[in-house]
């Protein structure tokens, strides 16, 4: 039994504990401990090595195996880490199915991350898809609808991948990852594989145009589940796309598949899909009035950055894309937790019904503040570092238009996360929230831990870049040069140095100067939130100062005409088409004269034979 076997076994044990014991508080704590032990076991595996599980299955003279490399290790770190904190966050959560479903997800994801050939990749891919449903079904009626929509998309994606795998098996007679190495397929075959694999996997990733399911499916389910799903679940799609790029169609092949000769290749198409997936979902997020949906839509948009970075496939871009997976998981989980701390206390996440909670829930506020700075990609949080790498790479590769799209996306992010923070924590406290308390410690400690991660890896990105580098090595790329504070570009002709420690020092000295100025200019007086005035009127409990409703009215007015709901329309049209086909085919069974069709069929076939 090697280290990978041990990890998978521990994951199974955690699963068992979660299913059997989660009815009691001790059991839930044990489950959380289980993830901690898994983390320890993960660190026992050397990320730079390749571990192959000793468990194998045979089918059709084919051996199905599982193995682990630096890339798997990196994603596994994020998966187990998130699961650990989310499980901790959920210890006071009573819903029985939650912990079991979470553990099933982690186990399925570990299987996917260690997939050693196409068949095990598909098996674990389907397991991950179905495991996700378990978490999505935890919510109320609308989450059930969302999960039904999700599974339809997911199975469609899965079937696309299956078709691709069947084609590979047919063309090469093998299901090993190296099946296609050294083979010269024709461009159409490569194009078919690219469409089937990348199309299928990007469904989970929520890349446009397959994004519609994601926000409701992730956002509307029970609290802690959302944190986990939003943080890592859709990144399994990214992992699978990387595997595709490594073993099925390389980026060079994609570059050679030209849609417009010498101008626009499939790779360019993917880059633009990624760019659009940044911009549109981000502005859709801006329009949301439910905090959970707002964040979930950002999850789709941030996925675009990761995809963009990877599609650059140079040292910086890929490092940025990979690092963004970690960073996004950390701040997104923290943000969702903070939102669910609010829901836990107030019972709502409607941004028009909150406000002023900073006075009652200061720790949750702090978490959200750190989280949104990370999400917006501003220093000193970790989101800045990864986005900076992606930007640098875009500029180095000479893609100013895509860079512009990415920046517009960031702008939209900043606007919408401010809306999130303002509408929930700033402004005036509502009367009904007067007696609210801070979330319990079982919830705030994991939140705060995540915030520490967001800040620490922002100031010292080298902590994470170490693992990013081993992932890059596993992908066969030249790794970036890093140090604790950031990146050096010595030895390469492209520019791009970053030292976050210096950035932070400068930033905080700015803050220090500002606070010295603030403190030295006279005294301020603390007032009650209701003891205030605006526009010459005193504000009281009946007449509040609350700007949350119809936030960004002007901006909304501008962007609204741009929304044609074409994707929704297309989805609806497709659904109607299937429904129509269904009605037609049912009428076949309802006919009064069944024999006519029989005779028609026989006559038609005879006609074919005789003619």
């Amino acid at each position: 039994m090697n280290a990978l076997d041990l990890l998978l076994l521990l994951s199974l044990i955690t699963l068992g504990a979660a299913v059997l014991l989660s009815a009691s508080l001790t059991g839930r704590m044990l489950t959380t401990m289980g993830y901690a032990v898994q983390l320890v076991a993960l660190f026992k595996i050397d990320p730079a090595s390749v571990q192959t599980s000793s468990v194998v299955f045979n089918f059709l003279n084919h051996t199905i195996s599982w193995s682990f490399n630096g890339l798997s290790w990196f994603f596994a770190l994020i998966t187990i880490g998130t699961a650990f904190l989310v499980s901790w966050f959920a210890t006071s959560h009573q819903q029985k199915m939650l912990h079991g479903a979470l553990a099933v997800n982690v186990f399925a994801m570990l299987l996917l991350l260690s997939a050693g050939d196409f068949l095990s990749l598909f098996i674990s891919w389907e397991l991950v898809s179905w495991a996700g449903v378990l978490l999505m079904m935890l919510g109320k009626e609308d989450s059930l609808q969302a999960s039904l929509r999700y599974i339809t998309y997911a199975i469609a994606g899965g079937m696309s991948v299956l078709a691709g795998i069947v084609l590979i098996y047919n063309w090469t007679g093998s299901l090993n990852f190296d099946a296609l190495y050294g083979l010269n397929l024709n461009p159409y075959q490569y194009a078919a594989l690219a469409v089937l694999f990348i199309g299928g996997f990007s469904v989970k990733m929520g890349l446009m145009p397959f994004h519609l399911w994601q926000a409701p499916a992730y956002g509307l389910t029970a609290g802690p589940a959302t944190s986990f799903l939003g943080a890592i679940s859709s990144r399994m799609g990214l992992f699978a796309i990387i595997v595709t790029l490594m073993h099925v169609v390389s980026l060079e092949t994609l570059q050679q598949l030209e849609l417009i000769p010498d101008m626009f290749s499939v790779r360019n198409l993917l880059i633009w899909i990624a760019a659009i997936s940044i911009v549109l979902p981000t502005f859709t997020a801006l329009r949301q009035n439910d905090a959970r949906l707002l964040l979930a839509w950002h999850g789709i948009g941030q996925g675009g950055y990761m995809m963009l970075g990877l599609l650059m496939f140079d040292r910086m871009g890929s490092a940025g894309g990979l690092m963004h997976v970690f960073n996004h998981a950390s701040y997104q989980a923290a943000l969702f937790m903070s939102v669910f701390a609010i829901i836990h206390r107030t019972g709502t996440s409607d941004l028009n019904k909150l406000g002023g909670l900073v006075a009652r829930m200061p720790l949750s506020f702090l978490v959200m503040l750190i989280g949104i700075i990370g999400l917006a990609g501003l220093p000193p949080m970790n989101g800045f570092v990864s986005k900076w790498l992606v930007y640098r790479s875009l500029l180095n590769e000479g893609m100013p238009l895509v860079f512009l799209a990415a920046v517009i996306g960031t702008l939209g992010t900043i606007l919408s996360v401010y809306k999130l923070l303002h509408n929930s924590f700033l402004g005036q406290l509502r009367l009904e929230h007067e007696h609210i308390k801070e979330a319990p410690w079982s919830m705030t400690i994991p939140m705060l831990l995540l915030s520490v991660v967001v800040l620490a890896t922002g100031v010292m990105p080298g902590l994470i870049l170490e693992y990013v580098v081993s992932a890059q090595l596993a992908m066969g790329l030249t790794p970036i040069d890093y140090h604790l504070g950031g990146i050096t570009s010595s030895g390469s002709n492209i520019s791009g140095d970053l030292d976050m420690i210096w950035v932070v020092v400068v930033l905080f000295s700015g803050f220090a100067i500002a606070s010295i100025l603030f403190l030295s200019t006279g005294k301020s007086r603390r007032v009650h939130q209701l003891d205030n005035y605006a526009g010459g009127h005193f504000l009281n409990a009946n007449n509040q100062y609350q700007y949350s409703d119809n936030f960004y009215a002007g901006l909304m007015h501008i962007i609204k005409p741009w929304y044609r709901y074409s994707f929704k329309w297309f989805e609806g049209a497709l659904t109607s088409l299937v429904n129509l086909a269904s009605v037609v085919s049912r009428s076949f069974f309802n006919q009064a004269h069944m024999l006519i069709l029989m005779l028609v069929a026989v006559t038609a076939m005879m006609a074919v034979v005789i003619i």
Partner: protein
Amino acid sequence: MNQYVILTVVLPLLAAFLLPSAGRFSFSIARLIAPLVLLFSTYLLIDVFISNTEPFVLHIGDFIAPQGIAFYIDELALIMALAVQIFALLLWPWKAPGSDTNSSASVKQLSLMLLLVSSANGLAFSGDLFNLYVFYELLAVATYGLIAYNPNNDSGFDTGFDTGFAAAFRYLIVSATGSVLALVGISLIYFLTGTLNFAHLATLQTTLYNPIGLTAFILILVGFGVKAELFPVNSWVPEVYSATSRRLSALLAGVISKLAVLVIIKVMLFIFPYDEARQFVLILGLAGVIVGELSALKANDFTRMISWSSVGQLGLVFVAFSIPGKAGIIAGLAVMFHHMLTKPALFLIAEKWGGNFSLLNGQGRKTWLLSAAFVIIALSIIGVPPLPGFWAKFLLLTGLADNTAYLAMIVILIMTVIEAFYLFRVFNHLYGTETDTSGNILRHSFLDQLTVSVLTVLLLVSVVELETVNIMLNSMTDQLTDLNGYIARVLGSSGAGI
């Protein structure tokens, strides 16, 4: 020992006709005889199955084929016959359908069941078209009676005023017309070749490769297709399956339909191994998949949903068998056996789950055993790895890809998505909805729960024993595709009989 296989056809037939007389003496004896006969046949079949590795031929009355009647008994035939006995026992009408009291099934019903089993065994073993037709008709008669059977009526059967009557009548019309078509097809073959023995026909394949021969194939395909739920002649399916008892539906959809499929496949393999014939099977199969799955999408009760899904699944079986070569046979057998395990279980579950889907709300927690069984079976049907349904579908898809039948591949993959949608909707009702207002518990009888559990466990065991299943499928395929061996065994190596 081998010659005793004939008893599995004769004994149930004899018992079927003796049962009414025996029932006049003592009802309990009659009730006891029927399952005992089945148990005995099961024992015989298992014994023969274990003691034989090679196929063998039974010349009835020692009249040599092709003049005499020949039973050709290979692994596949034995397994199918075994499946008939076992499923007949599992799905035996211990209680009369539709009655909640403990009133037992009447002698008439038991006698019809025995007739069904006997003719099904005959269908599995027969080595010539004439006997196939006879057994098929016998089977049809037994089925009409069983569908129309109604214990609450004085006569024992539905009359014009009962629900089952319309279904049985429609079924009768379709099936009888199908039989006529098949008979015309068989006559055409006889007209062209002068023989009906499979082995003899196999040597005369070329005389049948002409428009008249292919017409005969089409007529046989559509004629026998009625019971195999083939596309244009399957419109009786949802109506009959929702009108009769679930146990009977389970038997018809699970086992009997497969026997009809095998008849068609044998005809295709031995007599018409031509691309044209395969094309027809492929197209009708695909049409069945499309129509079945799309109709199931809009079904508003559980029984109809699984009836339609059964139409779709049998379409898949036909698509698989239309692939030329061994790959097609293996895939077809895999899909077929998978359906044989899953569909009866689903119909048994439907026993209490009929009616609107909203009745199922919250049942996942109340009746966890059957709900879990349903989830496993449904996932397997969708083809979620590593459940057996996935491997069957994988074989099917690789087979199609090998023959560049990409369109068929696409259709099957899309229909899988639809399948997943409507089955997952049921999961939602079972586990998701928290607002369960009815508060009722849909508890199945202990026997049903046991049967469903056994079938589900079998399904799971086959995941672990994938290699064994693979070996068995391969050996069945080898025997089925060994045409020269077949001819030699039936006609003697010298071809003495011809």
